[in-house]
């Protein structure tokens, strides 16, 4: 699960991790009202207006409705014109940004609607660095990654100048050690107050990442201020869905408007579903088999419309729900049901499909491949239903048939 920048900064602030002062706004009035307290508190006449969406590249992103406005705007008007000038500029920006669609390299062409802005104090920046904490799967431990190339896309840095990425593996029994922080600081060419503040920042963030059960914490950029402070100018966080049960505070930060409605609906029904661009809907049991079904469809010349794993213990009602989610996708020109029954019985799947088709109707071709536990009973249920279903011998045969029928 992802959260917004302002939420990530709130979590960091709660742990004593340095972030700029900021106020979240969902209306133009709230945005304008944020300016005065921020300027008075920080003594810095500059404020920044930042779009809050679950996608990176906001600074270089542009609004569909206002191509001259970027996703992140530094307001300098207060330097000469005072607070009122800053407020006027924020009003102008907020009225264009709120409710408009921001397109960035990560949103796709359709973009994302900005419903919230984060108004933040200006910071006098000396240097921009990169810092992240994530799982290193090859060792089964967290790794802290740091780089002097702040503000850049880290994948690009990793590809072009891999020696500019510093890595420290964190022992889960002791957490990140002071010597590791010192080694990172040295590699980043930090000294004096900045090095001490960096060590404090990294140590606190590394411990917090474990406590939060985060999948990823990315601070890009991490800035060194002109007075030697170290703070998070941006903050991106994702959390382990399997650990949310022990973090109700994080779960409460979920923004459902950022999630695919079909995926959300599937999740609530206990199904694992991901929307794709193709035309062949898939209903499969097991994540590996579901992925392999998509691959096989592609292999025989089609394009999968979704990933859908009904899981090992689905009942007929869940199967019916899965079927309805697939048929609700207007791009779907054919459906392929691919089941290898283990604990999940073929007759359960068959009953679910028949129920669903009777309820929602069937306007596209349907190919069903059943194998495994109670396979004969399952096939019999489908045959006796009188539905127009094409049976498949195996997975490849099924994929070939549905791709042909959907043409």
């Amino acid at each position, binding site marked *: 699960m992802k959260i917004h920048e302002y939420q990530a900064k709130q979590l960091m602030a709660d742990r004593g991790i340095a972030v700029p002062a900021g106020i979240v706004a969902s209306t133009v009035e709230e945005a304008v009202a944020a300016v005065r307290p921020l300027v008075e508190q920080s003594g810095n006449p500059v404020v920044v207006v930042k779009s809050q969406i679950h996608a990176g590249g906001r600074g270089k992103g542009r609004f569909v409705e206002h191509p001259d406005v970027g996703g992140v705007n530094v307001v300098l008007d207060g330097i000469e014109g005072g607070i009122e000038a800053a407020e006027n500029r924020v009003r102008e920006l907020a009225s264009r940004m709120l409710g408009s669609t921001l397109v960035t390299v990560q949103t796709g062409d359709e973009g994302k609607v900005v419903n919230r802005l984060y108004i933040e104090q200006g910071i006098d920046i000396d240097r921009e660095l990169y810092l992240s904490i994530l*799982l290193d*799967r*090859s060792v*089964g*431990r*967290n790794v802290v990654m740091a780089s002097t190339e702040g503000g850049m896309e*880290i*994948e690009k840095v*990793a*590809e072009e100048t891999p020696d500019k990425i510093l890595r420290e593996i964190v*022992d*889960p*029994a002791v957490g990140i050690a002071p010597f590791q922080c010192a080694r990172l600081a040295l590699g980043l060419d930090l000294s004096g107050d900045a090095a001490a503040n960096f060590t404090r920042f990294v140590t606190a963030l590394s411990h917090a990442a*474990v406590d939060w*059960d985060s*999948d990823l914490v990315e601070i890009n950029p991490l800035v060194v201020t002109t007075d030697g402070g170290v703070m998070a100018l941006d903050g991106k966080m994702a959390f*382990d869905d*399997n*650990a949310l*049960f*022990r973090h109700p505070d994080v779960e409460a930060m979920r923004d459902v408007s950022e999630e695919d409605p079909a995926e959300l609906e599937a999740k609530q029904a206990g199904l*694992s579903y*991901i929307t*794709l661009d193709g035309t062949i809907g898939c209903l*499969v*049991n*097991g*994540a*590996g*088999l*579901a*992925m*392999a079904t*998509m*691959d*096989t*469809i*592609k*292999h025989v010349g089609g394009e*999968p419309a979704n*990933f859908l*794993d009904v899981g*090992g213990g689905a009942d007929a009602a869940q199967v019916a729900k899965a079927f309805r989610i697939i048929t609700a996708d207007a791009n779907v020109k054919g459906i392929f049901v691919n089941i*290898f*029954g*283990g*604990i999940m019985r073929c007759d359960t799947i068959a009953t679910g499909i028949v129920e669903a088709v009777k309820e929602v109707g069937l306007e596209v071709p349907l190919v069903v491949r059943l*194998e*495994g*536990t109670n396979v004969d009973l399952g096939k019999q249920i489908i045959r006796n239903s009188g539905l127009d279903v094409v049976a498949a011998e*195996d*997975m*490849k*045969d099924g*994929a070939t048939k549905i791709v042909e029928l959907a043409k």
Partner: protein
Amino acid sequence: MSVLIDKNTKVLVQGLGKTGQFHTEKAIAYGTRMVGAVHPSRAGTSQIFEGDTDHSGVEGRDDTFRVELPIYATMRQAVAETGAHASVVYVPPPFAADAIMEAAESGVALVICITEGIPVGDMVKVKRYLADMPTRLVGPNCPGVITPKECKIGIMPGYIHQPGRVGVVSRSGTLTYEAVHQLTQLGLGQTTAVGIGGDPVNGTNFLDVLRLFNDDPATEGVIMIGEIGGTAEEEAADFVAAQMSKPVAGFIAGTTAPSGKRMGHAGAIVSGGRGTAAAKIEAMEAAGIVVAPTPTDMGTAMVEALSR
């Protein structure tokens, strides 16, 4: 011969809830030597499992079974009383990591964790805890391990398996069933099938199982089934190229999976350009592994690898 488990393996079950009971009954019907359960709230009692065995009608084997399974409060107690070699964990996700560590501390040689949805952070700690211990963990989020007609530990359907010549190791449950089914249809059968699970941090990996199969005289070839995410398949391919003396066939799921999306399994994700199916297939083919273009071709890929 086989790897990890055989007809002499004595097994404990941790977590005798609905799922644990269901699969314990299936395991006993298959012939697995279930010797006890750990379920603190029912400690001191027992549960009777009875019914028809999977081998009813087979000469020299029992048609029915009746087992009274003692239930213990702790793993230490259960191991002391039963002399168990292995345990299988069906404990719910919030408590599963603790169950694995308790099993390791009790001294069982093998812990197989079926539970799906254990927080990654918990598994990081478990892996650290197990690092200095002799206990081997298989899983979590896996179907388990089966040596056909001898011992079934986990949730796989027993009847599709057949004793034979090929070792199977896989990150995916249902794709394991596909491979096993094809091997049975082709008359090749299986020595042992090992599900290593779909989580990003797990116990036993491809490399460990390939090593075991390489040393097992009965295993003539191996099918390894991987998927997107991580680099375990690449590491396994390096081992195959350098040290494996037996033919290997394989399949990788997720060629069409979009980047940055978790495909059902917690570990099945391409992030930052790493863990792609293409990179894995390339590494495997370079190591001489016959990679099946679709799962339907896994059995024939094994036949081809064996004939080389």
